[in-house]
């Protein structure tokens, strides 16, 4: 089995199935830490991590911050407003300045596709992509997959449909790469104006009608509908979107079997997903959030050089200090 995931985590397209399984397996022992009364282990003690968020984010940033703190890293949060970025500093200068402060890792969220790779190519520190434009959001993809694996076990042959705005979704891309590499069958469903023209070359099934997707799928990953898509003219209205593509209890009941419901959040209740579905018995939306912290702990741990087989033991020691003790 592959023992490393490389210097950076930029996306799931470039990872192998084994590397993805390695991250998922490493996340397992970390899940338990968050259940403890004292949610802290010293695995990343002494490491400095910068959370560089050029785009607004609540969930992802908090999730990363908890993951870092529960591994005892020292963290600094930088948001675009209130930093030198708002004074016109370029990304490359920001990167060089961070590097000059001798940090160990950067978690970056940026509105430009490729921004994480841009940074990774220019600094020695490990870079984790926390969402770059409409490219990838690998930790979200991983936490979605971990949540599916919790329910399904092996994902081989399992049918997962990603619903909504695939064209602009980094979550969709990371899910498509990750799931297909683990042998799942993947489909997408959404208005054609929100699917990439080349979607048929992704090796996924395409459903034009949500009813067909529900008939087929064992799990639906329902994407958030960004409201700027209406002003940009991709679709006419949120109301019509709900009527044609919304996931409702009524539509799910017609399938006559249990379908797992995921949503990367934040939800627009009554638009892409109805409340009784989001809050219903087959929704794993909050499990996704819980798994998010474990996945991010696993990624941080592995990039810091931690050995996956020692993840259990690392809960009591330091990844970076491990070499000294051996």
């Amino acid at each position, binding site marked *: 089995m592959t023992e490393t995931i490389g210097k950076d985590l930029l996306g799931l397209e470039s990872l192998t199935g084994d590397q993805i399984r390695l991250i998922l397996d490493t996340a397992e022992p970390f899940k338990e830490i968050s259940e403890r009364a004292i949610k802290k282990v010293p695995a990343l003690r002494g490491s400095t991590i910068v959370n560089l968020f050029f785009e607004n984010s609540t969930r992802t940033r908090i999730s990363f911050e908890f993951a870092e703190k529960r591994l005892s890293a020292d963290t600094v949060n930088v948001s675009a407003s209130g930093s030198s970025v708002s004074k016109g500093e*370029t990304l*490359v200068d920001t990167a060089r300045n961070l590097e000059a402060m001798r940090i160990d890792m950067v978690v970056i969220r*940026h509105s430009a*596709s*490729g921004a994480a790779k*841009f940074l990774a190519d220019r600094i020695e520190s490990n870079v984790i992509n926390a969402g770059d*434009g409409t490219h990838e959001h690998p930790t979200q993809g991983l936490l979605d997959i971990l949540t599916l694996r919790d329910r399904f076990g092996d994902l081989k042959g399992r049918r997962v449909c990603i619903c909504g705005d695939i064209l602009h979704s980094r979550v969709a891309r990371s899910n498509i790469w990750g799931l297909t590499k683990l042998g799942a069958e993947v489909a997408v469903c959404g208005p054609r104006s929100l699917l990439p*023209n*080349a979607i048929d070359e992704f090796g996924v099934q395409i459903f034009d009608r949500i009813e067909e997707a529900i008939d087929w799928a064992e799990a639906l990953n329902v994407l958030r509908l960004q409201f700027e898509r209406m002003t940009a003219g991709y679709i006419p209205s949120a109301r019509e979107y709900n009527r044609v593509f919304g996931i409702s209890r009524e539509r799910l009941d017609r399938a006559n079997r249990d379908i797992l419901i995921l949503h990367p959040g934040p939800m627009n209740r009554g638009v892409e997903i109805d409340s009784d579905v989001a809050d219903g018995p087959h929704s794993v939306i909050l499990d996704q959030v819980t798994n998010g912290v474990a996945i991010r702990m696993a990624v941080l741990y592995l990039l810091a050089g931690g050995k996956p087989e020692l993840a259990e033991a690392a809960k009591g020691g330091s990844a970076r200090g491990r070499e000294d003790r051996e």
Partner: protein
Amino acid sequence: MKPLLLRGGRLVDPSQKLDERGDLLITGGDVAGIGGQINGPEEADVIDCEGLIVSPGFIDVHCHLREPGREDVETIATGARAAAAGGFTAVCAMPNTDPVTDNQAAVGFIVRQALRAAAARVYPIGAISVGQEGKVLAEFGEMVGAGAIAVSDDGKPVASAQLMRTALEYARTFKIPVIDHCEEPTLSAGGAMNEGIVSAHLGLKGIPAEAEEIMVIRDILLARLTGGHVHLAHMSTKGSVELIRWGKERGITVTAEACPHHLSLTEESVRGYDTNAKMNPPLRTEEDIEALREAVKDGTIDLVATDHAPHHYDEKEREFADAPNGIVGLETALAVVVTNLVEPGHLTFTDLVNRMSCAPARLFNLAGGSLKRGATADITIFDAKARWKVDPSTFLSKGRNTPYVGMTLVGRTACTIVAGSVVYQYLPVQGRTEMNRVRG
């Protein structure tokens, strides 16, 4: 001016169906004799052209020299020297400067700067509309009087069909081509690369081939309507080639150019978000390259132009979507064409000289394009076998942004002669004390 004797080169001049070994004598800035063995006057400087190709000078009808406005990126002088180093004896400067070259004073400024540079000739192209704003027609007559050889709003498409129609009609008085940058702006808005599987993978907004093709057919139809000469800049798609072929078959006055990068690189170069692979129109697919190569061969695409577009290095050093479009091309064009079109057998050297010298001279009504006795001695001498590694730090252009960095290419300029004067040389001239002297 001393006479100049080019001895023993392979003379390739499609204008007189010539491809044979022989001498060429220049006196008084003109070709005084060509072919066979010439015993020049005693005082003549001699250039040994053994193993080299001697051809009419290359002419680039499409480059951006950035002056006035962005002299930090390129000047007319550095651009003209880079052109000479690339084997170009003349280049045409696009008007998207700051301020825009949309009046006779601005055109005259470029003419004067070019004379001072004394390297390759620089011909100004005037704007189609005042300020390139696509609203009011610029003064074609006065600009032509000051030295403009064509009009274009390049960098921006002419969105209004009515303005394009008027420009094509009005330009007929002055017998100049109207060059269009074909791009349907609502379809391409926000696009950073070709729309296709790679843009879908990278999460970059794509520009579909149709954004170009819609304007190509519009312009061809307007040329039919008006009888004007439309020249289509930087064609990049298979569909455009088919539409141009359709227009030419019907006798419509449409001409077109393709750039070396669209003839050699695909959208795959963008993977990894390399901003040196970002240009407009974007790099397309293998299928498009094949169609373009075929079209250059059969003349559907009349000529090769560089779209030389220098940028300051740190302007390209940023997020892909925010990086500016364009690459430098003057100093790599010859080698890219030799390496990607001649070496694999798509073009002969006669074809190459036709597309890079004869056709641009003829279609844009410029001096050069021929080595006939009495013609102006604008001459390119190049080594078709020389292999060299592209190192942007050696460019005479101020621009360094090229996707060919580090690649080994075949073919390089040995000497560039404008009106009988050597403006660039990479080889010794007998009788001269200064070696490798670059004038200007």
